């Protein structure tokens, strides 16, 4: 696989050197978004096989800590991002909603895999599966796959980081996609 490394601006600001050190010129919103995006703590939440891939992504071989996802928290009150790794059934939906409500703002949601995106293989002829987790809580990034590979999850997490760094709302991002030259 030939992936070109994306060159990311390491810090949103300029340093003007002075004899005693330097002066940083930036916008406070940019700094806050930069800080948020590089320390996203995921919630320990897995409802089926996607969770196995998520654990793999967290473990040494793929190691999502390299990108700032660090420690998975076992409580929603300390988590920033919830990765919906697996099928959401009707019985689980209120619990997912409660977990989401208990997370402190700002909070982000990634729908991992076919089940969390649309119900996937359980879309037809089932009485128990929610057809997409976005019927329950708003989703920021969707990942295709059944289950997605760890690389796909890392890509989704980096996409989420870029989304946070851009500081734009969903409507603004959609507007940008329609008209790339529009200024927000």
């Amino acid at each position, binding site marked *: 696989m030939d992936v070109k490394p994306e060159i990311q601006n390491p810090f949103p600001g300029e340093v003007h050197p002075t004899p005693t050190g330097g002066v940083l010129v930036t916008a406070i919103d940019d700094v806050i978004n930069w800080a948020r995006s590089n320390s996203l703590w995921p919630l320990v939440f897995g409802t089926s096989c996607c969770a196995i891939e998520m654990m793999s992504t967290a473990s040494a071989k793929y190691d999502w800590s390299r990108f700032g996802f660090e420690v998975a928290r076992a409580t929603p009150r300390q988590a920033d991002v919830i990765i919906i790794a697996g099928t959401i059934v*009707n*019985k689980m939906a209120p619990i997912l909603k409660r977990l989401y409500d208990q997370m402190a703002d700002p909070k982000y949601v990634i729908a991992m895999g076919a089940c969390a995106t649309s119900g996937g293989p359980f879309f*037809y*002829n089932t*009485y*128990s599966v929610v057809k997409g987790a976005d019927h329950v809580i708003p989703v920021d990034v969707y990942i295709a796959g059944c289950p997605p590979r760890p690389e796909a999850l890392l890509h989704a997490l980096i996409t989420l980081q870029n989304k946070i760094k851009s500081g734009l709302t969903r409507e603004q991002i959609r507007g940008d996609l329609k008209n790339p030259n529009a200024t927000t």
Partner: protein
Amino acid sequence: MTNEELKIKLSELIPTITFEEGGQPIASAWLNVNVEAKDWHGFANSLKYNPVLSFDYLFCETCVDWKTHLTMVYHLESTQHRHIVVIKSKLDRSKPEIETVSDIWKTAEFHEREVYELFGVNFLNHPDLRLLILPDGWEGRNPLRKDFEDTINMVKL
């Protein structure tokens, strides 16, 4: 005990049983036994407590909806003799009733609750026959029946 020996021994115990032939003609295939629902509890008792059989492990209990009738399926193993047998019992689809075996194999208590909610089989003398996984207030609708309909949640294909 081999399947042939099991066949002889089980026929001695209860002559009304029939054996299912066909399927995979391999030596490791499990012996399939059909038993009348009314004979089941007594038969189950001797399967467990007869020392040469000693089927002490019920490792699967489930039901199949054949549209015309229901079939209860019990997989039994003896941890002592290492032999396995599959017991099947045909039930009337409109009024499925069979004696519980939760007094013989304790694990059957949960398995039977699951079969009760998903297929609507009524287990006679079960100590605690209520819903296991389905949400409260579900009573009366059995989602694993072939004719189950759910106009709200189900997208038909």
